[in-house]
């Protein structure tokens, strides 16, 4: 197999914290195997070397927040056979999409000494609003095993095993005790896409919804249940305004609890 041309893999960064790319570096042992199976053509967190495109697989981290990035993603798309977004920013706009619910100018004037230097878009948007995306990997940050699974699946021409069901299924499969039922904790697990392995419930906390909406999320029903059990509308709104605030089902539910 050795002399067969290895697929070229590139990692691209947009508005993000680098956490998802770091998940790839965090693979350590497995990273060597990945490096043997692919040619790492662009991965600024790991190496300064940049190999020219086109690329077989582009992993895109981060959301689109500037006019320049809105351009750049098109160039990357043109050079990539497969474009895979990694993480909540690239898939749903990220935590920075909180600006979408207010005026970004107010943030800019509060945060920056010289607002005039800042050129930014009014909204933080997912990659899929700009170019076609072949696969979206969820999470804030992504789970490194899922990231490996996605790369592995594409190398082997199969579908990745990243089921879109609830976090509850992972929670129960691990034999964890439900914090919502046993401790009356607000938990986003029943609405949230699996992938983290029920990390928060495992540490006795409610799920924060880092992986975004699961398939067919019934946000209204759970929000109504919380409401009946004494949660305030502002708190319910905030539960949906996390890393995936701009993912449509979460966005709509948060808006339903705004200013009431």
């Amino acid at each position, binding site marked *: 197999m050795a002399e067969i041309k290895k697929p070229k893999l590139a990692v691209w960064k947009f508005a993000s914290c680098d956490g998802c790319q770091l998940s790839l570096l965090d693979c350590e042992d497995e990273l060597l195997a*990945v490096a043997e199976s692919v040619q790492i053509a662009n991965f600024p967190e790991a190496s300064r070397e940049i190999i020219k495109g086109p690329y077989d697989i582009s992993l895109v981290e981060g959301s689109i927040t500037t006019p320049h990035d809105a351009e750049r993603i098109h160039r990357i798309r043109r050079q990539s056979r497969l474009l895979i977004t990694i993480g909540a920013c690239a898939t749903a706009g990220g935590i920075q999409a909180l600006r979408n619910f207010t005026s970004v100018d107010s943030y800019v004037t509060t945060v920056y000494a010289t607002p005039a230097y800042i050129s930014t878009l009014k909204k933080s948007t997912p990659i899929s609003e700009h170019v076609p995306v072949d696969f979206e990997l969820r999470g804030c940050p992504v789970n490194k095993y899922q990231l490996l699974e996605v790369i592995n699946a594409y190398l082997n021409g199969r579908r990745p095993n990243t089921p879109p069901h609830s976090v509850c299924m992972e929670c129960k499969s691990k034999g964890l*005790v*439900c914090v919502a039922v046993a401790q009356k904790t607000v938990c986003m697990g029943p609405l949230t896409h699996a992938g983290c392995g029920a990390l928060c419930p495992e540490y006795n906390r409610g799920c924060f919804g880092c992986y975004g909406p699961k398939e067919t999320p019934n946000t209204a029903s759970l929000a109504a249940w919380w409401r009946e059990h004494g949660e305030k509308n502002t708190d319910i709104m905030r539960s949906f305004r996390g890393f995936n605030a701009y993912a449509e089902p979460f966005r709509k539910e948060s808006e339903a609890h705004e200013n009431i």
Partner: protein
Amino acid sequence: MNKKSKPSAYTLPASQLQKIIDLLHEQGYTVIGPQRQDNAIIYDEITSTDALPAGWTDVQEGGTYQLQRRDDDAWFGYAVGPHSWKQFLFPAKKKLFTIERETFRAQAEPADKTRYAFLGVRSCELHAIAIQDKVFRDGPYADPAYSRLRNNAFFIAVNCTEPAATCFCSSMNTGPGAESGYDLLLTELIDSGQHEFLISSASAKGRALLGKMELPEATPAARERGQELLARAADKMHRRMDAEKARKLLLANPEHPHWQELGARCLSCANCTMVCPTCFCSTVEDVTSLTGDTAERWRRWDSCFTMGHSYIHGGHIRSSGAARYRQWLTHKLATWVDQFGVSGCVGCGRCITWCPVAIDVTEEITKFEPVTQETAA
């Protein structure tokens, strides 16, 4: 297999239960029993009676479960928790085989030779295991891994004297007293100032173990007390299910408007199916090594509440929440009977307690009552 005559009961002082655990260990069993962990009573490996949830009970209602101190120090004074024995006999995730590209030969996973002794199995749970036996062991597509674990297991049942508010086994004829399917059966007696158990056996394995204990025969008074406790437990159960009626209602009302209401409430989170001791659905996932030289097939729990469960080429058959809830309830309480000759529900109440929005099967089934065949037609 078992003698028809009623097995005679003996008295086991609480201090002697440890000896049973020790004897089981000597015979190579891994003993699994109840213990308090993370605000619940769960099932895990146990080596000493010290680990039992002495003095704790569970207070349950739709969507809520709380542990509470009891007035006494009973070891089995609770009902059922989030775990069930299913997770040992039919694990949530299991590798089935490995296959190599070179030879294209599948290598089955070596059999799990664990011999489990389950301590504290409730009557409803024995019924649930009997139901899974029909699916995994006695049917045309037997699962060798399940069959082996199950046939090797030793069951120490405990009669329920403290049902939860969510229990409805008495109306399903699956409890609160265990009648068969166990090796040893305990009834905890603590309110007489002494802490002891009535103990009897219903299998050769159970009798052999009891034979090593040299226990006194139970007094008629103690037996009577055991019967009283069971009768009191049955009386305490307020939730009910009329299984035959439920089946008729469901089969007659596939288009009832109440399904839409249920669809609006249900989260499709699948918690009910995960905790249900009879639910048996699984799916398989294939994984490869990075180089593609080897592949593995894994089985994991699935649920009729996932979209993938009803996906066939071209789309999902049950894409609405209402359709998925209807599938679960109708299968569990109606078509299961046609398929396996029994209801798929044993009345354990887990799906009621562990539903994050408290959907209660015993209550929902009554919503189909006003519109029956005559009025719907």
